[in-house]
């Protein structure tokens, strides 16, 4: 502050009460702040802080030396550029700015190196995850053809056998004759799930397939009205119900019920139907259990049409 201005201000404060009061307040504050500064002048960090810092410093230096040793070992295997003939090799004294620049460049290199390593690790992990997902996906793809079997057209239009999702799995010994590729692995569970999904969408009229179908390798099997049981038995007993179940005779679903309908091959599909289906086929119906579904086995021909049905209890 200019000395003349200071003297003038002090002279003014002698005559001006407001400035005198302000000056007094400022002087009081300055005195108080100096008192604090003086009072705290002897304060310093505890000795344990220095001990901790020194230990950390020595550890850091040891790590740096270890890293330097490793780098030197690597560098000793690298080709060394020799100076040109007659050139004097002298130690170069770096300026402070050069040193700062070099240190920053080194820090930048380390950062980039760490980022590269992290990126490589992340890419590897992503690749492994992709391969794993791909493998899982290829396992879950159904290997057999799925089709929607339409309800049988003809005289029995009121037949409650609604469209079902069935899998046309060719018989094991007929793959070559049908010209279709043999499925690598049958997926009955997935087809059942497909059927369940389909049934949910079409409720309450769509029957639910509750068991996997069994392939009937009929060969020259002859199916006719009233002969369903024999046809099923011809399937090598595959359609035999469980011992705890009782079944009805097969009821033909073929329109017109011809005397003999050839059945080359087919499938037996376990479904659930509304109990009213019993009445539509002329079977007695218990009105008290009208809401409960009833299990049935539907015999599907290799053309996908339902040929016969039997009820299971």
């Amino acid at each position, binding site marked *: 502050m200019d000395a003349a201005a200071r003297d003038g201000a002090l002279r003014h404060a002698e005559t001006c009460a407001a400035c005198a009061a302000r000056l*007094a*307040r400022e002087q009081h504050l300055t005195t108080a702040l100096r008192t*604090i500064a003086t009072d705290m002048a002897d304060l310093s*960090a505890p000795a344990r*802080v220095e001990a901790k810092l020194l230990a950390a410093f020595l550890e*850091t*230096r040891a790590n740096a*030396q270890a890293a330097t040793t490793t780098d030197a070992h690597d560098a000793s295997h690298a080709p060394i550029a020799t100076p040109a003939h007659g050139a004097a090799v002298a130690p170069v004294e770096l300026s402070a700015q050069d040193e700062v620049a070099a*240190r920053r460049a080194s820090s930048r290199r380390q950062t980039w190196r760490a980022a590269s390593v992290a990126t490589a690790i992340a890419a590897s992990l992503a690749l492994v995850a992709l391969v794993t997902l791909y493998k899982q996906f290829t396992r879950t793809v159904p290997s057999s053809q799925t089709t929607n079997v339409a309800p049988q057209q003809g005289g029995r239009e009121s037949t409650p056998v609604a469209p079902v999702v069935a899998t046309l799995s060719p018989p094991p010994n007929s793959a070559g004759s049908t010209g279709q590729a043999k499925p690598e692995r049958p997926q009955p569970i997935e087809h059942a799930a497909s059927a369940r999904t389909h049934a949910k969408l079409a409720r309450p009229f769509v029957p639910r397939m509750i068991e996997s179908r069994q392939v009937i390798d009929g060969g020259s099997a002859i199916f006719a009205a009233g002969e369903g049981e024999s046809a099923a038995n011809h399937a090598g007993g595959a359609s035999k119900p469980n011992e705890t179940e009782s079944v009805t005779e097969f009821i033909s679903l073929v329109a017109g019920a011809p005397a003999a309908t050839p059945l080359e091959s087919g499938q037996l599909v376990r479904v659930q139907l509304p109990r009213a289906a019993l009445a539509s086929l002329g079977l007695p119906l218990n009105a008290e259990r009208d809401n409960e579904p009833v299990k049935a086995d539907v015999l599907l021909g290799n053309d996908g049409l339902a040929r016969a049905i039997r009820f299971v209890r």
Partner: protein
Amino acid sequence: MRASPEHSDEELLRLTVAGDADAFAALYRRRQAGIYRFALQMCGSEGIAEDVTQEVFMTLVRESQLFDPTRGALASYLYGVARNQVLRRLEKERHFVALADEETTEDGRAGASNVSAHTADAADDPLAELARSELIETVRGAVLALPAHYREVVVLCELHELSYAEAASVLGCAVGTVRSRLHRARALLVERLREVRPHGDARGAATDFDPLRCFA
């Protein structure tokens, strides 16, 4: 080359980077008190001040390449690191409420802190020392109650007696900003000290007069 008191801060830092533990210790002993006091005056907590001091010198060890001698002195750089650490800690502690000190006296006022307690023993006049301690506590409380950007200016320029240019270097702002902040901070301090001054204080009688501003 061995570290000695004649070495500048920058030379000690260069030796430290080269792995000289003695140089690091010398640098620490030279600068730790200021950093510790700065942190203590900024946050009022000895624990935080201790942590901040440790973190400042650890930063110097780990990232010494961040110091650029062309931009200012090492002391300013250390104050700047300490300032950032303190502000970070204050931001973190902002959501917590400080509990009353265990040494709280019967009338509810906090007892004298360690800062002023260690000087009380040396007092010849108990009453004068008591008044002094009260004054220190009052002003310390007023400084701690300031907003952080005013507080740091008061601490650097008034308590650590840094020049405006040095404070501007620490804070990373213009010298004019330091001046205006200091002016405003002092005005706030005067206001707060007037609020807490007990009635009938003879020393304050002359300063309590608050007429209209003089434009002379």
